[in-house]
Each structure stands twice: as structure tokens, then as C-alpha cells.
């Protein structure tokens, strides 16, 4: 359930590093806890963000939940497909349900994030 090769944030976002770019989404655990996603408020392309900052909101039929970025940089792209199909966040959280792409200003920030094994242990710890 937790893909290898991604880095995980304590607030249940994942990033996939592609050179200087980080693709960011929310984890399976996060989408499952939120329930059906019905709308996302996304940042504007070109905006500078800092690690730890709230960059958007996920609205589900149950609640509103902030999306944080664990890395700093500039928003290069937002997933336009989510405007019509927010349910992709539920159906394919690590794939077509990606949320934004960030051009990282400090790729070393990603090193401080959890890997799949650590994130799995983190979830288990939270559940106990």
C-alpha cells in the first residue's frame, strides 16, 4: 500500500523526486481518512512556497483538510485534471491523483522526509 521510492511527510503528503522537481500528492492513508474528495483548492502556478507551508485544501464530503508542502520552491504545475475529477485523489493517490509539481530550491530538504518503511512504521505507531 505504501509505494517504495517516494518520500513521506508527517502530514501524510508524499513527494516523488524527478531531478529538481518534486511531484506532490496525499497518501492512501490520507485519502482514506478524508473520504470522497469533492474539491481541491490549489495554489497558483508560479507561487513561491516554503517547506511546512499550507499550499491548498482538500475538501471531502466529511471535512476540509490542509495540504502542506514538505519542500520549498516554486509551484510549476497543478493537476488540472482534479478540477473535473477530484475523485482521482481517492482512486489513484500516488498516480493520477497527484496535486502539484514544485521546482525545489533546496532538494536536500527531501532527505529529511520518511521513506516507505519509516512511513509504514509511523502509521502503525499512530494507530496504536
Amino acid at each position: 500500500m505504501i509505494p517504495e521510492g517516494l518520500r513521506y511527510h508527517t502530514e501524510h503528503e508524499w513527494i516523488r523526486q524527478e531531478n529538481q522537481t518534486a511531484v506532490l500528492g496525499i497518501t492512501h492513508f490520507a485519502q482514506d481518512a478524508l473520504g470522497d474528495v469533492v474539491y481541491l483548492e490549489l495554489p497558483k502556478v508560479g507561487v513561491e512556497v516554503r517547506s511546512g507551508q499550507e499550499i491548498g485544501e482538500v475538501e471531502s464530503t466529511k471535512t476540509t483538510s490542509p495540504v502542506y508542502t514538505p519542500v520549498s520552491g516554486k509551484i510549476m504545475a497543478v493537476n488540472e485534471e482534479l478540477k473535473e475529477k477530484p475523485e482521482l485523489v481517492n482512486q489513484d493517490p500516488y498516480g493520477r491523483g497527484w496535486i502539484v509539481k514544485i521546482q525545489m530550491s533546496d532538494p536536500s530538504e527531501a532527505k529529511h522526509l520518511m521513506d516507505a518503511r519509516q512511513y509504514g512504521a509511523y502509521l502503525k505507531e499512530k494507530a496504536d
Partner: protein
Amino acid sequence: MKRTPLYDEHKKLGAKIVPFAGWEMPLSYTGVLEEHRATRSAVGLFDVSHMGRIELTGPAAVELLNRVATSPAKKLAVGGMQYALACNEQGGVLDDIMIYRFDERRYFVCANASNAEKIDQWLRKQAAGLSGVDVTDRSAELAQIAVQGPRSRELMKPLTAVDLDRLKLRHCIETKVAGVPMLLSRSGYTGELGYELYLPADRTPGVWETLLHEGATYGLKPCGLGCRDTLRLEMGYPLYGNDMDETATPLEASLDFAVDLAKGDFIGREVMRRQKEDGVSRKLIGFELLRQGVPRHGHAILCDGKEIGVVTSGNHSPSLNKGIGMGYVQTRFAEVGGKIQIDIRGNAVPALVVERPFYKKGKA
């Protein structure tokens, strides 16, 4: 935390269980949207056993109800139902209730889970001065199931001897369903054709399983509190604790239809009579967003940048695919068609005051 007689069934079905008004209740089984759509297009099966069920018996039962409720209880015929508010002396809403009359001298009050004890005590207190009425809390011995959706009648027909084609909206009858004696009513909280079953707690899992099994052909889905909320919101039904409470009167909550000032005295009447003459200073409205977004409880309602009220219920409407909500505004802003804005985390999102129900295709 209390559990309904169907708790084990919910666990078996893999429901997400959440605390609600002191109960461990299913939030959803397969997803709020899927369950919402099943109820609008086929059948939804709901455990609503957390609600309060109070029986009133005796010759003075009708006197008690007429005094406690805003509706004309004296006009209620055997087999009928009335929606009403129970208010305090200041006109504040203690609860919204459904009154059933299933016999000459037997009435039944269905109260919200969060208010079940309060209403039971209130009825006892008000009964103290009357002779000839017994108040019995039957919440524990009975359970309550709602079968809701356009195909609910097809599902229910073979399970009961009652001619369901002749059971009218807001009517009830004592009968058997799936071999179990119960009170059956045509009613619900979804806006769809539907039924509510009041049945012995120990027989409830069996009936639930029968409905699940027989319902499969009709597209039945077990449904949790999540879609119960989105379904009622689309109908513009106020939810106690969100859209009204003891600080609001029925007239402020735009529930005038349930208040009969002409029926004689009842608790809170004087306040409501004065409000009817002088008007209210704030009113519950329905609104829809004109742009994407989801209004939520607690968001400020604005007009030209000034705060004029607050959102009390809001969500994304699955059927209309837009943000809808209810809230209180100063009365002069309550006109249908009025342009307002909802303050969603600092963004003033344009919205329109609209009539309720928001969703008009329900076939209750």
C-alpha cells in the same frame, strides 16, 4: 459510548465507525458519495437506532403533546404523523421531533439522539401536572431502521402484508415486516420515498440482514451518517445542534410551517406570537455557491464585505455538484435571490440566497 443492536452488522460490513452524540455509529461503508447516489437512485439502508423513542399513553397524552409541541396535536388522526418543535418558555428549540399517533390513546415521539434524554425528561416534567398520561422511554428496547430511495417500495412490498401503495407520506401502521411485529411509517430524512421501521431490538439484526439480502436486486447499499447528512442538506432539512438549538426560535429557524399559533396555548407560544407580529431579527436561509468551493459550519456570511451572519451547515451537494449551505443572516438579507458571499478561509466566494429544498427531484 453506546452501541445500537446493529453494531456487529456494521463491523461485519466494514463500516467506518465514529462517535456521534454518545453513540458509536457507522459514518460510511463504501463511501459517502456512493451511498448518497444509491439512496437517490435505488435504496439506502440506514441504522438510525441512536434516535430517541418515547411512547406516551393514556387519555391525557394528546393534552401533553399539544402543550409541548408547536404543531396541532389534537388534529392528528390515528395513523398520522406530525413534524413539530418542542420549545422552552423563551421559545428556544429544545428539539425537533416527529409525533406518531398509532392508536386512540398511544402516541410516539421520535427525538434526536443528542436530545433523547432531554426530551424524555421534559415530557415527564410537563406530564407531572396532568393525570392520565404515562411517558415511557422505549429507546433501548426498540431499534430503528430507515429504508430510503425510489426503489424502497418494491423492496418492502413482498416483506409485509400492508398495502404499501396505500400508505401515504407521514403515515404509520402497526404491522409485521419480514415476520417481525413493528411500527412502520412512510417517512425519512432524505427527501426520497422511504420507510422507517421501529422494531424490537433483539429482532433487528435479522431484519437488517433480510433487507440487505433482498435489497441487493434493487441496488440497495447500507448507508452511514455521512450521506444521511448530505441527503438532508440537499433537502434543506435543518439539523439540530447545527441549524437550530435553544438559542433559536422556530420562526428564526424558518420553520413557521410547523408552528400553529391558533391551536391554543403551548410552551413558548407567547414569544413566537410576538415574533410573528414584530418580525425576527435573524433568519435561517439556504444558499448556493456561484463558484467552486465548499462552505462549512462556522464560515462567516458577508454582504458587500460586511459580516451579516454565519453558516450553520454546508457541504458539497453530490446531486447538484456545487457547494450549498444554510445559515443565519440578519432578516433584511434573507430574501431569495439576494447576493451574498461566504468567507471561505479569507476568500469571499459569491453565493446566492435560494429556496429550499436545494434538490427538487425527491419523490418522498
